[in-house]
């Protein structure tokens, strides 16, 4: 095989393998599974607010198979973000990237459990980022990140990473049948800072 293509294959697999360490399953007793992303080694987890909506017991399953009951630290349905905590330590985290510097056309990969297919990886490119993207209908005053990925139920809350496996967004929703929409990581940071201000400072 062409050595460049071989290297490309290896790179893709490396990113997928390393990011999978921080990809969680989240169940809320309704059946079905959502995704979550480890944000801090001491058990801070980020996911979508719509993943944890419901009244069942919220459980988080690590890639190792360990399962924990999760506690909700904060959630904001308007942003569709939630922060959870589990009593675990030394968890692998994904290095955050600079989501403000994203460029149209650059490579991204989304991880999650689409339609219950666990630990799936899908790749594509950034379509664009901003508060108003063409016909994207969501208007909540923050930036959205559009990608040419078909996100499915179960992708929600999972990580969106760049070509080096850095976290640049949280997979959230589809706009029409073809445009995947993620919350950029700078919006996630602002959310955590606002809701968990002091805790977050201590943790970092």
């Amino acid at each position, binding site marked *: 095989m062409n050595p*460049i293509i071989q*290297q*490309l294959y290896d*790179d*893709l697999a*490396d*990113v997928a393998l390393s990011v999978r360490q921080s990809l969680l399953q989240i169940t809320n007793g309704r059946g079905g599974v959502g995704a979550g992303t480890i944000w801090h080694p001491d058990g801070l987890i980020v996911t979508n607010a719509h993943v944890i909506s419901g009244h069942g017991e919220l459980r988080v399953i690590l890639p190792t198979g360990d399962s924990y009951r999760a506690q909700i630290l904060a959630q904001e349905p308007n942003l569709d973000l939630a922060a959870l905590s589990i009593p675990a330590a030394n968890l692998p985290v994904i290095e955050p990237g600079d989501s403000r510097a994203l*460029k*149209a*056309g*650059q*490579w991204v990969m989304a991880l999650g459990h689409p339609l219950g297919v666990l630990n799936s990886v899908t790749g*594509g*490119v*950034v*379509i*664009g980022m*901003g508060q*108003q*993207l*063409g*016909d994207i209908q969501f208007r909540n005053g923050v930036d959205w990140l*559009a990608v*040419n990925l078909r996100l499915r139920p179960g992708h929600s809350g999972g990580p969106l990473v*760049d*070509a*080096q*496996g850095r976290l640049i967004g949280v997979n959230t929703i589809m706009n*029409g049948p*073809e*445009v995947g929409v993620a919350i950029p990581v700078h919006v996630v940071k602002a959310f955590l800072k606002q809701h968990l201000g002091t805790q977050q400072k201590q943790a970092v």
Partner: protein
Amino acid sequence: MSSVLQSLSDALAAAVETASPGIVRVDGRRRLPGTGIVWSSDGVIVTAHHIVERNENINIGLEGDVIAPAKVVGRDPNTDLAVLKVEASTTPPVWADGSDGSELKVGHLVLAVGRPGTTVQATLGVVSKISEPQTERQPRRMRAERRGYGHGRRRWFYSIEGEMYGSVGPVIQTDVVMYPGFSGGPLIDAGGGVRGLNTSALSRGSSVTIPTARVREVIDALLAHGKVRRGYLGIGAQPVRLPTALAEQLEQEIGLMIVSIETGSPAEKGGLLLGDIVVGLDDYSVQTIDELLMLLNSERVGKSTSVRAVRGGQLIDISVTIGERE
């Protein structure tokens, strides 16, 4: 970590950035704006005809959110291209037609770029086919021209006098999903060169790309005449199977039987008759309506053209001066 993947990612983003100053927003319809491409630095912009729904009050959004009013120079509904002009200095992208040897091939990575908002947007795919869009386009466009003729489903024919979409020429087909507002924007290669113009109006349910070489032809015609001239013959015709002996002699199985002739048309003046089966034009074989329309191009307007037909089992050549379709 990830050196090749990161390089690929950087290269794709750089390709978009390279083309970006030459990609503009075209605000010429009530719905979401579409995209246009700067043709030259004196403000000539090419876009998709179908997104320019009005002839006045058209605005162009240039890079840096500069907005400039534009005039319509000309339109060619056939290829769904329109040429606009802004009174502003513009930065064209790199137009690539493969003439430098970098031919676009099936399997190549390509990006569709659009500017429906203030910033450029992009999406990635591969070239899936480079071909004529006949099969996709013929049913949709032609059915409107289909005329009832008896009761049997087979007994219909196509009119050649209506608005025809048979001469776009080869198009680039990709698996790229064009998002709303991407029509009129470019398909670029991984080096940022513009390979053609994307439009959703020529085939049902998907977008095709009109190659740069064809875009250039249409723009040249529109800048020179304000329209693309099309040849006019003045017949209605139906594909029919040729008798075996003739089929072997001509090495073609199908011809176009004339089922109507317009009064005063070039066909009538030239002496074509109902029932003649057209099999060729100027030594080119004619088997389908699309082939005939391709041959009735601007170069043949006003020229004496030899129409080869079958009449009474014999091959005849009839000289017809091709008119111009209004």
